[in-house]
């Protein structure tokens, strides 16, 4: 059991009701990039990047898949406008808001908490602000992105959200800092 007087080395919070739309198609195609930009408010990110402007953004998931993040209440409208913009284009858009859970990891050792659970290179040099990577967290697939100021977000399938929440909480127990990365990096 954790000592209530010793703080956790990172704060874990499950984000409430994040809106998510999966867009599949040739991401560099002009029409697809323009449609994504119109609903997300940011340009299509390059490989292994994510871009945000306030509550909206796009994450690069694979050479032909992008994840558009936006407030939950705006999903229906965005989906309709994407489908309208992509008529005749070889692309698919799906509302995946209910399929995934979003966690936010903040605090001085947020990077270490994630690095302890994943085989990915999460060093500050390799995984700076704006970087996104799909990888493995213990036994389940996740996508992690670095928001800057030492905060990270990750998505996992909702069916394993309880498992991921418990994993992160365990890795963030007081005294769990490894000291491999500088604090707050």
């Amino acid at each position, binding site marked *: 059991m954790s000592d209530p007087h010793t703080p956790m080395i990172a704060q874990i919070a499950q984000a409430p009701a994040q809106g998510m739309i999966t867009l599949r198609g040739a991401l560099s195609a002009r029409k697809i990039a323009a449609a994504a930009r119109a609903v997300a408010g940011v340009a299509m990110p390059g*490989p*292994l990047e994510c871009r945000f402007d306030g509550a909206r953004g796009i994450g690069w998931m*694979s050479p032909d898949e992008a994840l558009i993040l936006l407030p939950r209440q705006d999903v229906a409208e965005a989906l309709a406008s994407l489908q309208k913009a992509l008529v005749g284009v070889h692309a698919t858009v799906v509302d995946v808001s209910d399929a995934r859970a979003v966690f936010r990891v903040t605090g001085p050792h947020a990077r270490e908490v994630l690095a302890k659970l994943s*085989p*990915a*290179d999460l060093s500050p040099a390799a995984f700076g602000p704006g970087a996104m*990577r*799909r990888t*493995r967290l213990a036994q389940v*697939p996740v996508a992690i992105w670095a928001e800057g100021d030492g905060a990270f977000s990750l998505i996992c399938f909702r069916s394993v959200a309880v498992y991921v929440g418990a994993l992160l909480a365990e890795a963030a127990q007081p005294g769990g800092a490894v000291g491999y990365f500088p604090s707050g990096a």
Partner: protein
Amino acid sequence: MLILTCPYCGVAADETELAPGGQAHLTRQGPGADSAAFEAYLFHRKNPKGVHFERWRHAHGCGKWFHAARDTVTLQVFGTYPAQSLTPPDTILKAIAATYPGFEWEGEA
């Protein structure tokens, strides 16, 4: 530990992020093939001590299949290349020849 760089997304993926797919460059035997050829296609696989061409999937990542050339003894990785390649690219063959002079690809199985 085996680390392969996915040729599609560029991530240096750990072995545990990948799903193995067995020997690469198999020629598919369809319904018209004779039994011996079909049996070979289904079951006969190389198990070399040394250079091996393999299929891998970046399962905990971009999800794409790719090919890798590596040494099964030393775990040296000669390179990875897209799964759409019918033959290993010259750069891969040169990397292998640098370690094993005179190496020649045996061709599709």
